[in-house]
């Protein structure tokens, strides 16, 4: 292997609710390599102006190009808006996505679920059904459509529902809308490679001296090996989801259930019907919310999980991978690699499910302040947008943040001051 780099710098950009990390590796001869891992938001920092994302894009450009360097690799862990919205282009060619594209990265890394067809270089486990990719692509589109319909439905009923419920469905729904501009830009800005657990990333040429392991997402075959429900029925479920969501939301031109029946309008119910009717309204929307959440989780679980081993250190970037994505990795031969993680990018903005206890307890470098090789954790998030405290699903999760603060050198983008674009975290690799 070529000589490893001597230092790593993580620029954790302040995008609000989203991820944007510029990873810089510096070599002994002073040369540098740059990776951009995600660039998106669904809620900017409170004090950010309209031009904020472009400012970040320009800063990324400046850092990559100073001293003759370049943006070598772009990683889009999964297609949620809060990870790729920054890659969208503008009509005038000066959008944040245009600025990134102009840097002409040599490689764009995405999960295998994004691949249009089985890539030529696919050396993944043989999949019994050739149409897996088409099915996956179609079900991703179906998920987007379902999210769209969920939004329509909840806006329609917003006056009758608790505000918190409406806000939550809206936030999650919008994160799951299709961002065509970003997707197209990612496909066009450089050669694409689609990765899965254990696959080759093709990054060796761009990152000499660095070992990159892909821990997730698992392929269908890998998943089927450990799950009971066949992945194919999952894809089928999502194909039906838009229709179900449309029906459930009372959208479209569904025929009345009982055309001849005498009815009483919801706004004029009999006194003896009102107590339950209000509760049924809420129950119905909560069911919609759980469908939207399931969709959201499904999308999160397509995240690429990357582990970089450079010099003496290990850096873990898991996107928004949740337990279901992690399950394959945790029982695989690669699991022991997690013991030595030195830097952990906190999954899914600090949600409970994205840092499963079974994974967290594997990190041996957790410890108190006095520990010399203490684990570093980095979180990019914004309070109050996702989940709710009452149900212990708030993002970031308080108990997780407590554990991160107690057992690691914890950095959060929320601690940045107004106007600060990023926090710089340096790690020596020797």
């Amino acid at each position, binding site marked *: 292997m070529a000589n490893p780099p001597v230092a790593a710098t993580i620029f954790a950009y302040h995008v609000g609710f989203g991820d944007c990390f510029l990873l810089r590796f510096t070599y002994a001869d002073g040369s540098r390599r740059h990776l951009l891992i995600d660039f998106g938001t669904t809620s900017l920092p409170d004090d950010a102006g309209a031009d904020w994302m472009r400012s970040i894009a320009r800063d990324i450009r400046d850092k990559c190009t100073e001293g003759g360097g370049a943006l070598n690799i772009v990683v889009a862990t999964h297609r949620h808006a809060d990870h790729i919205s920054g890659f969208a282009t503008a009509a005038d060619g000066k959008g944040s996505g245009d600025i990134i594209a102009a840097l002409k990265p040599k490689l764009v890394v995405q999960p295998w679920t994004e691949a249009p067809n089985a890539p030529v270089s696919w050396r993944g486990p043989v999949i019994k059904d050739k149409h897996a990719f088409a099915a996956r692509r179609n079900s991703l589109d179906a998920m987007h459509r379902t999210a769209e319909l969920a939004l329509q439905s909840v806006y329609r009923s917003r006056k009758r529902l608790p505000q918190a419920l409406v806000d939550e469905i809206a936030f999650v729904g919008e994160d799951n809308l299709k961002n065509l501009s970003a997707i197209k830009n990612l496909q066009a800005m450089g050669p694409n490679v689609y990765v899965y657990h254990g696959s080759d990333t093709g990054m060796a040429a761009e990152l000499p001296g660095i070992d990159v392991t892909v821990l997730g997402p698992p392929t269908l075959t890998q998943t089927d090996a450990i799950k009971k429900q066949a992945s194919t029925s999952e894809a089928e479920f999502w194909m039906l989801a838009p229709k179900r969501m449309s029906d459930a939301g009372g959208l479209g031109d569904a025929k009345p259930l009982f055309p001849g029946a005498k009815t*009483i309008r919801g706004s004029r119910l009999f006194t003896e019907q009102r107590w339950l009717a209000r509760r049924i309204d809420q129950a119905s929307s909560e069911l919609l919310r759980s469908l939207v959440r399931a969709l959201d989780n499904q999308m999160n679980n397509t995240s690429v999980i990357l582990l970089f081993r450079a010099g003496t250190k290990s850096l873990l970037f898991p996107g928004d991978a949740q337990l279901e994505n992690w399950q394959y990795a945790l029982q695989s031969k690669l699991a022991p690699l997690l013991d030595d993680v030195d830097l952990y990018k906190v999954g899914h903005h600090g949600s409970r499910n994205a840092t499963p206890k079974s994974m967290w307890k594997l990190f041996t470098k957790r410890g108190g302040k006095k520990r010399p090789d203490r684990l570093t954790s980095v979180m990019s998030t914004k309070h109050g947008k996702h989940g709710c405290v009452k149900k212990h699903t708030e993002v970031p999760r308080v108990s997780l943040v407590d554990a991160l603060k107690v057992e690691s050198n914890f950095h959060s983008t929320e601690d940045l001051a107004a106007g600060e674009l990023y926090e710089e975290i340096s790690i020596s690799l020797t």
Partner: protein
Amino acid sequence: MARGSPRRAIARNAAFPAAGASTKVEPPPTRKLTIVAKDPGLRLGAPDGPMAFTQVDIPAELLGKGPTGYRIKVVDYNATERVAYFDNQDYQRRDGALLDPFAPLDGDFLDRAYQERCIGDPNFHAQNVYAIAMRTLGLFERALGRRVGWSSGGHQLHIAPHAFAQANAFYSEPDRALLFGYFERANGGRVFTCLSHDIVAHETTHALLDGLRSRFTEASGPDQAAFHEGFADIVALLSIFSLEEVVAAAIGEDGAVARGDAKIALVDASKLDKDEILKSIFLGIAKEVGGEIEPGELGALRRSVMIPPERGKVMRTDTDEHARGEVLVAAMLNAFVDLWLARIAQLGEFEGHRYNLAAVVGEGAKVASHLLNMAIRAIDYCPPTDIDFSQYLAALLTADREAVPDDSEHKYREIIKRGFEAYGIPASGPGCNDDGTWKRFDRNKELTYTRSNYSAMMRNRDELFRFIWENRSEDRLDLDERAYTEVLSIDQVARVGPDGITLYETIGQYTQRLDIFGAEFKSLLGVERPRVMLTTDKFTAFGGGVLVLDQYGQVKYHIANRLRDPERQFARAEYLLETSQFTDLDPNDRLRFAVLHQQRMGA
């Protein structure tokens, strides 16, 4: 047409005099209402034959609009369409005669036009859920010999037959309601979960079980989560067999013989082969819904009875609670089939290897009724928290032994015990006898009875608690003094003694809680905490027990899951951590059962 209700069929209750009669007649205790038997997917004679409609007997009452009765209140509100459907029906006349608005005018339940009118009328759906829920409630009240309340404390459980356009149906504890959804078929027709007898009986059973053992909805272990689902399926499946005409029609006649003036319908022996019965519509849940959601070989939403014992043993240890629940159903229903076949084998054969259809169906009804009673009575002998399948088996065997001390004729208990063991559910444990029943309480000599008042103890929770507290020491009831203990319920159970005379026993449920930190796990619960639990983690440990007092007020059984039960407490804590339910206990979640069902229905 605005008022679209079909021509109302009025089936007069035969015992009643004509309108205007002056003599006052005793109101009848029961009435008949028309329902869809089993499932709209059950077709008689041919795959596109008529559905099976029937009348069921339920307690008679004067119903309000809805219909609304003393235990059930139907509110036909549809959140997707934002309308409520008007109740056009009358369930009684002014002279008090009770009506069945949807009985066929000419008595022909199989008439297609009649069936279509019913299916197209929301009021029929309302009647359907009302009648099936009342029928299921009646099963429980008869089995237990007392009234069974809803967990909310309210007297009326709400039912919404067309709550929303979603492929789901569930019991919502905080809403005191059963909510039934509907959805469209791939080819455009509609599927109503409220028309499936299986689904309505299943959801009503959740509500009834919640009334009897309200703590079973809490996060505890995979068995407890699975128990609700398995038990609800068992009740739904077994309760069909008492609709003997429907069962006979579904099995189908294969000729008949004359015996004097009577005609005896016959059924071919080949239909009574174990495999055929396992595949039959009776042992699948919700054919119509299942056919839409997961078309396939099951022919139903689920068909747990087809799980063979070897696979059941594997599923028994599955972390997935759905899989576990199915093992319970498989064990019970396979025992049912074995018992039924054993009784059929004792019947005489007619020429051509055929059996008397009515006799076959009658035997099925007897066995199903016995098992249903056993399954329901067993709840009284289950501890209030952290139930596992082996404990339920012990409760089953104990309940049956109390009711039928001499089992030598049909050997129900032996067959059940063997069947459950084959599925990986042994009847073992420190509190059990060799035959699997709960051990009798043997410390009565140590208990202090003199300071309590038995007649008050039978009725008053404070008094029963006083008795428990008085006798808390280790050599008596052995309850942790530091825990917060509470008597949840006291019920009287009627039993027919060996001399045929009814005697009354008392069943009291109590629970205990201890709020601890991870650091205290070992000292208070007797076992090292799970590795992933921090010393500073907050944790609540529960214990609970059932005291059965005999007709003299003496403790007959003390069936308890103690706080200081190292193995069980460790297993529960580990389960909670693994499923990330730690500090997320929210049994009042309205969607608690809905999400489970969403997953079973393919989400």
